């Protein structure tokens, strides 16, 4: 190697080191933009670490949005909308989610009795990236088709029992607390309504606070006061026979991403009609893998992949941004003040005393539209 080459390499090394320092400080925005296509501001931000070296996810977050889980047919195959389209969809969704409107008749009014006073304002806004669906995979933005298979005689029996239970609930003839769903029973939030994993936007309380200590990440959900303690110290999972309503999580770090796998769900027979995991999938074959990545000072990207070969024809992935909020989390009382349980059961017994009988074909006593979160 000649002396000149050595000198040239030395100069090049100094230039590269200097450039990378400037780039790291965000002072060569044009350079990073040219290479990565992303704005310099995003490059300049470095994901913070805790004093013991874990990525720092801590803060109080709200994951409310009106962006629908599944892509609405009206936007067909578009994954991201233009500003005008987003404006239109946001106002359409705001109208559909509006609980103060009175155009649905008496039954709809009843089901909208959790009116706009309850509504989390974040629930009225699309995600900042103007996606058409929270589902990012598959590309059509929709939950994959369900697996079709013939039910075993036992499963068929359970299905009929579950349908009857639903009819009793919907017509106001609950026989027992087992005719209520897990949310009404104050055990856990219904799995398609957030307040736990997967964390999906609902009408209210889309709040979570993340705490970290060496070896642990804790995600505290306001709904039904749920502190989800996630060990990140590599410990083994619980034995399979240990059943839980919310599953037993184990976390690990992949770069700046917290990856959480959760298992040990109780079996379906112990739960009642609405299921313990998302989509009433089979808790034994259901898999949920969550990824939390802080992508800026104010935002975590929450990506969750759900799969169950007995339920869906393929896995699917949902991405919901978690945005920092200045609000606080307050105590959520449920079991302590569960008037619903009393009113429904007591009401059903009173109707029986008056000689009314359960008719599975009777119309719903609750309104159909607007009751969903």
């Amino acid at each position, binding site marked *: 190697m000649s002396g000149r080459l050595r000198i040239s390499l030395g100069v090049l090394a100094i230039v590269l080191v200097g450039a990378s320092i400037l780039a790291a400080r965000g002072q060569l925005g044009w350079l990073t933009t040219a290479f990565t296509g992303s704005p310099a501001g995003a490059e300049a931000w470095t994901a913070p670490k805790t*004093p013991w070296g874990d990525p720092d996810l801590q803060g109080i977050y709200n994951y409310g949005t009106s962006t629908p889980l599944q892509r609405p047919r009206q936007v067909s195959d578009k994954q991201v909308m233009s500003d005008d389209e987003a404006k239109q969809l946001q106002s359409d969704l705001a109208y559909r989610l509006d609980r103060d409107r009175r155009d649905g008749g008496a039954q709809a009014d009843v089901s909208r009795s959790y009116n706009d006073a309850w509504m989390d304002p974040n629930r009225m806004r699309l995600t900042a990236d103007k996606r058409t669906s929270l589902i990012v995979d598959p590309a059509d933005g929709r939950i994959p088709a369900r697996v079709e298979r013939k039910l075993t005689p036992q499963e068929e029996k359970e299905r009929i029992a579950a349908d009857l239970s639903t009819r009793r609930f919907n017509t106001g003839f609950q026989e027992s607390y087992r005719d209520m769903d897990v949310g009404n029973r104050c055990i*856990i939030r219904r799995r398609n309504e957030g307040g736990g994993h997967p964390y999906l936007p609902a009408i209210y309380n889309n709040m979570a606070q993340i*705490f970290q200590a060496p070896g642990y990440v804790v995600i505290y959900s306001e709904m039904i006061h749920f502190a989800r*303690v996630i060990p990140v110290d590599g410990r083994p999972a619980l034995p399979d026979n240990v059943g839980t309503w919310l599953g037993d999580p184990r976390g690990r770090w992949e770069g700046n991403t917290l990856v959480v796998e959760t298992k040990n769900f109780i079996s379906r027979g112990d739960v009642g009609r609405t299921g313990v995991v998302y989509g009433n999938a089979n808790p034994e074959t259901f898999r949920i893998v969550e990824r939390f990545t802080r992508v800026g000072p104010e935002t975590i990207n929450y990506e969750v992949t759900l799969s169950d070969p007995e339920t869906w024809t393929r896995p699917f992935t949902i991405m919901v941004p978690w945005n920092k909020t200045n609000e*606080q989390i307050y105590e959520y009382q449920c*079991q302590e*003040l569960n008037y619903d349980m009393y009113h429904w059961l007591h009401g059903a017994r009173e109707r029986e005393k008056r000689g009314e009988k359960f008719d599975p074909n009777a119309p719903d006593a609750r309104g159909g539209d607007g009751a969903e979160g």
Partner: protein
Amino acid sequence: MRNRSNAVIVATVVAVAIVGIWLAMRLQAPAAAQVAAPGQFASYTPSRTADGKPDLNGIWQSLTTANWDLEAHGAGAGAYPHLLGAWGAEPGGQSIVEGGVIPYRPEALARKKANFASRATPSVPGDGVEPPLGDPEMKCWMTGVPRMMYMPYPLQIVQTPTAVLITQEFNGNTRIVRMDWQEETPVDNTFFMGWNRGRWEGDSLVIDVTGLSDKNWLDRVGNFLSDTAHVVERLTAASPYHIAYEATIEDSKVFSRPWKISFPLYRRMERDVQLMEFKCQPFVEELVYGRFTKKPTT
């Protein structure tokens, strides 16, 4: 010359020793004074978190029988001996109350006795009975402060500079202790777990709890406090394996003077120990709602 230099060395050693002892006494004296129950723990300098506070992170559990009765009590048969035999029996225990006895106002003592009489026959919200009947623990309600600290279930402390999370295995009872938070409860309501504000006083985590629900009981025999209660807790690391815990309870509606409880929290040391899920709602539905069901299903 040689003697003189020897004298200098001796004098230096003595001086260094005096300064050293003085420093050691200065460092140790506050630690000794902070231990809640003098005589129980030798002085201890706790390990610290990155922000220099004593490290209270971990899984902890009390070993008292205070959840059955805060005051001294003999063993008892429990509420359902005909069903549960020795499973439902209650261990005897010594009082964790300073001075032994809770200083009730006379009318409040009558309420405590009524609580006891109803402890195993719960009402539901729709019954309209106030105060509600039945021990909140039996109904799977949140069990409040300070009761969560001495129930026979582990609890986990997750300590950060701005907030300390205390979560308990029973029913997932949780409170967020906001550090150096000035405001009283910001809403016109009470909380079963109270409004918790924390601060460090020397090496003690002091938690100021107000806004407690008047539906809280303190134990299974019906000791209780009201929505005017002010609970001040003090958690002091007493060894790598112990927290000295004490709480002063002031509630002029119920008690004739402030009173204090104290006991140690023990660190759970089992390999890979963790809080297990204890969702008790399904366990109490038949007890609480069974009388409204068409036919009991379990």
